[in-house]
């Protein structure tokens, strides 16, 4: 019997398999950031051991950094201390750090791919659940806790049970104005926020194949939001073209060897998945969430499902979510006023996302009452945006282009949405208080977010696109 892509990569990384024990799985690349690493470094100190393979570890500061005036010392004391601690730890343990002020600094899941560190066939981990992003390249990539960060520091390995595998196929052509973010929000709305738990998901089908690498990263990024351990997409020419020539990508003869290996990375025809789901791209419209978990999403023209239509045991939680959001059963979100628009996060802060937003807003202005924050995923994305003149387009539209970081996705720094305010956000989580205490988050694509910024309310971006005839993008 053939193997799935997950099995091929997993089996190639098993150091030891022993009955009754989880596998000892070798980790090729360990990404770290300031929030989930300090206690792991402390653990090494207590044990008196070094980082086993420091050259397979890369660090950046992203979760806790300000997105304005990054050249100045961090104002907030605890944040400054945590970021300083990362610098100190990286120095002590010999780890490369792309910290504040470095031209490679940025959100950990944005810089890995853009530097060519993320490659097909690798195992990659990070103390961050959105590590699944790197699966877009055909890598096994997943988030871990701090005790496991310490494990990888100490041994370059993790104890892991081999996951079950699920294939999700999306076939057909996407409508104009519908992109990667809508695909993944649609899938999660069907599976629920727990539907993928215990599985590694392989995304396949013509609609997935048609996506750019940026779009594929958006899809894999949110696989954790259906509970999956990770998500991945078999590498193809789109993948190889993206990786080729990047800073840490293999070069010359090494490239040829790597490519020959990468071309073997796909699920065999007769491979068996533990579960298979299929969706039709034609059924997907621009998506938006109305509740407090990412599974609570609807097509923009649909109404909020009624509480009575939920399983009885889940009605109190469902009601609690609608109350928090200030929404009613059967309400449409079209026309609902918006206070903030946040375009950023490891889900949608890449250059392609910024280009899509810029092409849409060019020559328009934001609605007067809406505050719009655009937070690029990295210094490189920021530099590219400036080179292309995208920053000018944003400025003219009244959008504020800030500096790179996780920002209002989790509101760990100063970038918080005020209590009670509605924010259309291109990030990945609409949990209660995620963007700030009592903030109300509606997740959507960059295009839908841009349309909300310009209109001052929730609108169907397809209608605006028809009006303005903007070129379709995959964002």
């Amino acid at each position, binding site marked *: 019997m053939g193997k799935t892509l997950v099995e091929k990569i997993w089996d*190639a990384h098993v*150091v*030891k398999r022993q009955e*009754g*024990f989880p596998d*000892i799985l*070798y980790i*090729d*690349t360990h990404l770290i950031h300031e*929030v989930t690493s*300090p*206690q792991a470094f*402390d653990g090494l100190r207590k044990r008196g*051991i070094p980082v*086993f393979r420091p*050259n397979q570890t890369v660090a950046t500061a992203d979760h*806790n950094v300000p997105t304005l005036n990054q050249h100045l010392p961090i104002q907030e004391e*605890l*944040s400054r*201390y*945590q970021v300083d601690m990362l610098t100190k730890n990286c120095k002590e343990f010999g780890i490369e750090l792309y910290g504040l002020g470095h031209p490679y600094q940025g959100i950990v899941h944005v810089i890995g791919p853009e530097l060519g*560190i993320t*490659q097909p*066939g690798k195992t990659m981990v990070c*103390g961050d*659940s959105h590590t699944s992003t790197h699966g877009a390249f055909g890598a096994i990539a997943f*988030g*871990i*806790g*701090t*005790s*496991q960060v310490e*494990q990888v520091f*100490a*041994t370059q*390995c993790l*104890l892991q*049970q081999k996951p079950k595998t699920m294939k999700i196929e999306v076939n057909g052509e996407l409508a104009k104005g519908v992109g990667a973010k809508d695909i993944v929000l649609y899938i999660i709305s069907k599976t629920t*926020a*727990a539907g993928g*738990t215990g599985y590694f998901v392989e995304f396949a089908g013509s609609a997935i194949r048609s996506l750019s690498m940026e779009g594929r990263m958006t899809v894999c990024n949110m696989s*954790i939001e259906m*509970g999956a351990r990770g998500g991945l997409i078999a590498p193809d020419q789109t993948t190889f073209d993206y990786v080729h020539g990047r800073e*840490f990508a*293999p070069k010359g003869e*090494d490239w040829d*060897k*790597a490519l020959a290996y990468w071309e073997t990375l796909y699920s065999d025809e007769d491979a068996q998945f533990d579960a298979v789901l299929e969706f039709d791209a034609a059924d997907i419209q621009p998506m938006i969430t109305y509740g407090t978990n990412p599974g609570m999403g609807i097509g923009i023209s649909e109404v909020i499902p009624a509480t009575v239509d939920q399983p009885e*045991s*889940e009605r*109190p*939680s469902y009601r609690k979510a609608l109350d928090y959001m200030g929404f009613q059963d059967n309400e449409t979100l079209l026309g609902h006023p918006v206070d903030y628009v946040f375009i950023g996060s490891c889900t949608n802060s890449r250059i392609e996302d910024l280009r899509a937003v810029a092409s849409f807003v060019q020559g328009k202005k934001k609605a007067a009452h809406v505050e719009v924050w655009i937070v690029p995923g990295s210094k490189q994305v920021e530099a590219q945006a400036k080179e292309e003149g995208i920053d000018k387009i944003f400025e003219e539209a009244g959008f504020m282009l800030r500096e790179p970081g996780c920002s209002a996705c*989790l509101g*760990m720094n100063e970038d918080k949405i005020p209590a009670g305010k509605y924010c259309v956000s291109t990030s990945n*989580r609409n*949990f*209660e*208080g995620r963007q700030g*205490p*009592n903030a109300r988050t509606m997740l959507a694509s960059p295009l839908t977010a841009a349309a909300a910024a310009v209109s001052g309310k929730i609108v169907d971006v397809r209608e605006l696109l028809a009006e303005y005839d903007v070129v379709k993008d995959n964002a």
Partner: protein
Amino acid sequence: MKKFEKLTSSVVPLPIENVDTDQIIPARFLKATTREGFGDNLFRDWRYDSDGQPKADFVMNNPTYSGKILVAGKNFGCGSSREHAAWAIQDYGFDVVISSFFADIFKGNALNNAVLPITVPDEFLEKIFNTTFANPDAELTVNLEAQTVTINATGDSFIFEINPYKKSCLINGYDDIDYILSHTAEIEEFERTRPFSFYR
């Protein structure tokens, strides 16, 4: 790591589904660089209002309910991988969390911190909630060796699953690093002999 064998305790019931780790410990409290003290901010925004006053309607502020076992609705611990969620639960004083379904990363984090996550069927979870609401002092007994959780008042018992390796870690207080470090020679051999090595 602390050892775990057996526990008899009353429970704190939290009959809410999809409790995410942002609720367990909001991001703004993740700035600490040690593992201690997170219990003060466990369920911070459900527990306290914006002025820092306890919200009377939240179960942890209700003196009727107390104990070392937290019982919650399905998909507990979803979302962010922050181990701070497990630290907060442990620091507050819970040794066991029971739900009908756990998110993967949280489950692993809990086990790495001597907090035992026990998955039970929906009907059994319902029985625990009903028993507790009828009598807040009702106790459960968790026996890790036998892998049982028992509602003492009714005698209802359920045999839960746990990976045998993780079970022995909890009973003996071992952690994963000790185990993997004992295989360092095999790790180095793996590195030397793998057919394709990666860059960076």
